[in-house]
């Protein structure tokens, strides 16, 4: 399966986190929230204006801006 940035996923698609594209202090919080390598993510929906996006991981829903999601690499899995 191919590896893409998280913001490229469509509604209903799933992916597994492979890592981050760059090292930034900002990302540490994302990791603390559970967005670490190996975590499975489902893209639930995009906000009415297209940004941010709602993702489901570790049993909870998180809103994340596309600009931040773009830094996270995921291996695409089959859609729901």
């Amino acid at each position: 399966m191919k590896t893409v940035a998280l913001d490229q996923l469509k509604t209903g698609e799933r992916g597994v986190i492979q890592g981050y594209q760059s090292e930034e202090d900002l990302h540490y919080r994302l990791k603390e929230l559970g967005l670490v390598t190996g975590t499975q993510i489902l893209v639930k929906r995009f906000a009415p204006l297209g940004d941010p996006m709602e993702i489901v991981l570790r049993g909870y829903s998180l809103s994340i801006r596309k600009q931040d999601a773009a830094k996270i690499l995921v291996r695409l899995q089959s859609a729901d």
Partner: protein
Amino acid sequence: MIKNNPGNKMKEIALVGNPNTGKTTIFNALTGLRHSTANYPGVTVEKKIGQTQLPGGEEISVLDLPGAYSLLPRSLDEEVVHDVLLGIRRDTPPPDLVLVILDANNLERNLYLATQVLETGIPVILVLNMWDMAKKSGTTVDLGKLSEITGVPCVATVGMEREGIVKLQQTIALLLADPVAGPTKFSLEPFLPDRLKTELDKIVVLIEDRLKDRPKAVFGEALRLLSDRIFRSPIFESMKIGDLLRTEVLSVRASLKENGIDSTSVEPECRYRAIDHLCGQVVQRVSHKVLTFSDRLDRILTHRVWGILFFIGIMGVIFQSIFSWAQVPMDLLSRAIEKLGDLAQGWLPAGALQSLVVDGIIAGVGNVIVFLPQIFLLFFFIALFEDTGYMARAVFVLDKLMKKVGLNGKAFLPLLSSFACTVPGILSTRTIEDRNDRLATILVAPLMSCSARLPIYTLLIAAFIPNLHVFHILHLQGLTLLGLYLLSIGAGLGVAALFRKTFLKGNRMPFVFELPPYRIPHLKTVFGTMWDRAKEFITRAGSIIFLLSIVLWFLVSYPKDPGVQARFAAERQQVSATLNGEALKEHLGAIDHEQKDLQLRSSFAGSLGKAIEPAIRPLGFNWEIGIGIIASFAARELLISTLAIVHHVETHGEGMTAGLIQALQRQRSPITGELSYTPLVALSLMVFYVLACQCFSTFAIVKRETGSWGWMFFMIFYMTGLAWSASFVVYQGGRLLGFE
């Protein structure tokens, strides 16, 4: 050992947990309504303390720490949690016992903070809250097993229904009596690379000394310092070891990197591995593939069309309630205050004391109380949205719009609140974690046209904007009012964008937030939250407005010229001797007006008004408006009563507005004979009031929330500059174009 010694200090427990875990409901269930709120000294973080009685009869104190995701602080809230737990804060002694509140539905992420707390070595109870919701969604947690692995007692609760609270109190009593009964067994070490453990010791030896109270916490602390990429922790600024620590941390990072260990993600990755391992043994999830209630609601409330329409509808209801429904109780209150003033006038002998009580104290307190219906309604809606989970959806829907001006979705609510009153607006910026986002929001909140400005717009529009129809349906007066509000919004967003592109660039945190499942609102919680916040508004803003009203009263009433006083007394006597009935009443009224006018003109405020006249002349304002502008600093609507006094209009009751409008329309300059107030002057004045920062309560709240005089003065400076320039452009530009 000293145990349950009656002379001993009251035992203290603290509540810790992620946001949205129902921590507050547990706190309320434990303490009832017996709690007090204050701030931690030096920071704007709320400190909530209450008391609870344990089954044995012992009273203990309960501290509700702010919500946090991690012990590596990224916001003021988290810094307080970290410092209190590790015993670093001098004003708050380290608790004897910590309750970590977890959302049973969302155990994995909640365990991140929980395991960090477990490692500190403080006695802990894990409280698995919202147990009912977890059961409903098919999640079961083996409490016995969890307790066995972590080595600490685990209690299931439903905070809102008070389920499990007695059990929790019993467990607290047991653990406080014998802290050794609950030694923490959880350890991250098996999940850490060996190389990391040996390297970490180099940091451990440096900080051991500082954490004498919590020796077990040293390892975790060292791990977090290693992850602190930009040296945010205050320990790096320490005179004694700061530099040494920096060098050591950098060298450890480099040596780990050579071994393929990324120090910027090693803690979260290992910790989640430990958590996954733990959850694998205690959590069982039966996933129903059906759509939950929340999912179905979200399909509508975050829908491209319906979501936005619903949001606009909700905002419509809030605005309607604040500006229309709240008017009824507000009018009643202001009449009651006027009555009270009249009564006091009757009771007290005429003189300085009467004037202080009636025009200073009662009028001053009245200025605050009148706004309470609006404030209560506003806080009610905010608490309701937070409790149901809609707030997060509103932020989700709006974030992209707010991002365009460099703010985030969470700035929306504070800015909206500021249309009622800037003070609660600024108080609600506390939900914005990122410093720059929050500062920018605070600095532009006073530009939102608060409801104290509305009476001024209404008066000036009624007096000077012709009641014309544009394109048959639109009302010119209504359009002007709309224009003022648009000016306020435009200026606020424009200034925010400017600040965020210049000196408030960048972010410390990614803008992420949880979207909790929707919930039926718990009215007790909603009203409790509303009441707490309203109380804060009353004490914060109320005390300042009250004091300022007295200062202002003094500025308006003094100095008194005894010669003038005597002259008016003589005039009154003379009139009383020669006239009677209606004629006498009329004459006495005229003398009163003249005396008030002369008094105001010769008062300190009058002198100030005259002093600033050269500065406001280019905006088309005379010195009477100058006095009004000075008076506005206590409360903007005082411009109206000031103008009423200087133009000899009845200052009380229903006739005031109509009388004042007539007086303003007729007023001519005594020197040039031209009309003093033209539509152009009125427009310039309204623009000035939209943009100027004339509210001492706002100054005080900005000082407190930013913790700096610098930001406060900056705000006053930029807003005054903006207001002056805009009014200058309107007035001088209008004259160039030939308007009057």
